[in-house]
């Protein structure tokens, strides 16, 4: 299995530990990642809010790069995933829009053909590799660790796009269970982390995260796991901000799912990776670190 690896903006800027774990774990599972040279930002919601045509064309440019590589794209971020997936879906379906986008792309020597698919980390692990192989790779299962899985909005919404891709909505839960941990059901699981309003309306963003964290705490989870850098940032760093503004202490460790998988496979996290979590993970995972 081989994918065009779309790194995005936030991960290399602020969540190096996420990227490093992906680069360590996936090859162990027989998955090869090829970096996309010259890729631009996926054109997330902030850019879509400004100009529609720019969104379509910029995302299409990234898709062209993957097409030239002859590989499906894999993203690590729900925002990148949603942007590239939606544009890929629109352009495959709508010839008029495709022609218009290609007219612009021809000025930079590119053409969108619609030959590849867009996937995220969960698609790759659950859909392409399969839960069984993930389970087989686990050497040190987390016996019954109570984990609250946060799939994030755009892994499953809008549902009509994902229905067509025949994707399940509990894929992440199955992957969490494969590590031996328990994926604990909690209220408002499908609710947004609040991240998209960060830097636009920080107060509201915090209040949204707070609802989510409350629900997780009520479900008595020991840790939260995410598959999106925005969810991670909002729920991890967000807890410190909530403490400052609302004087509430949730103290819920947040772990990238790939880190959970890595530890389950018997690979230790390094010191700087452990410290990349603002809410210490050393308590819950002390026997793994």
């Amino acid at each position, binding site marked *: 299995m081989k994918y065009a690896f779309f790194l995005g903006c936030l991960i290399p800027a602020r969540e190096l530990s996420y990227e*490093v774990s992906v680069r360590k774990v996936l090859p162990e599972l027989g998955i090869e990642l090829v970096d996309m040279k010259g890729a631009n930002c996926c054109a997330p919601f902030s850019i879509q809010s400004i100009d529609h045509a720019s969104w379509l064309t910029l995302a299409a440019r990234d898709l062209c790069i993957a097409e030239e590589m002859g590989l499906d794209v894999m993203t690590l971020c729900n925002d990148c995933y949603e942007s590239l997936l939606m544009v890929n879906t629109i352009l495959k379906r709508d010839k008029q829009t495709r022609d218009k986008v290609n007219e612009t792309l021809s000025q930079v020597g590119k053409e969108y053909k619609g030959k590849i698919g867009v996937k995220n980390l969960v698609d790759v692990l659950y859909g392409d590799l399969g839960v069984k192989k993930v389970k087989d790779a686990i050497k040190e299962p987390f016996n019954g660790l109570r984990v609250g899985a946060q799939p994030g909005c755009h892994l499953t919404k809008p549902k009509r796009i994902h229905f067509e891709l025949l994707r399940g909505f509990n894929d992440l839960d199955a992957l969490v269970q494969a590590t031996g941990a328990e994926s604990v059901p909690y209220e408002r699981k499908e609710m947004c982390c609040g991240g998209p*309003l960060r830097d636009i309306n920080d107060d509201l963003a915090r209040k949204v995260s707070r609802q989510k964290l409350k629900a997780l705490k009520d479900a008595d989870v020991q840790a939260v796991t995410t598959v999106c850098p925005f969810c991670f940032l909002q729920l991890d760093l967000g807890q410190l901000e909530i403490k400052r503004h609302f004087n509430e202490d949730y103290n819920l460790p947040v772990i990238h799912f790939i880190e959970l998988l890595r530890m389950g496979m018997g690979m230790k996290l390094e010191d700087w990776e452990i410290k990349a979590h603002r809410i210490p993970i050393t308590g819950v995972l002390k026997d793994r670190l």
Partner: protein
Amino acid sequence: MSEVANTPRGRGILLCIQCGRCSSGCPVARLTGEHNPRRLMEMIILGFKKDVLSAQLPWYCLSCFTCLDRCPQGGDVGEVMFALRNIAVRQGNVPAGVSGQAKALYETARVINPVRSALDKRETMGLVKITTDGLEEVQKILKITGMEKIVKSI
């Protein structure tokens, strides 16, 4: 309303029957009375252009797309928000967080850029370099689509 309905992501406004399923599932509407997607749709339908485009109204939405799944009409309220924002931006209504990302995109082809220490760490770890290889093409695209002009005006 026609201005919204005539944009690619704004067509859903024509399907709105004012049932309120968007508002009742909206995580932001739960927290603040300022944001009520159903009421916003109503304001667009009734032509309250000035009120709709003013201040914060277009910028409360998380784009979590819960309403897309809930709308019985397939009216895509969350999509209409983008049509609305596209219009608001052209009238100069754009939050600093959004214009900052747009400027970064125009200048570096990325909306968020690594700080020096992150770049140094990448180098010591032998991770792939963060480059601006695509920047020339990105700027050319933004010039053609007209976004360059918007970025320079906000």
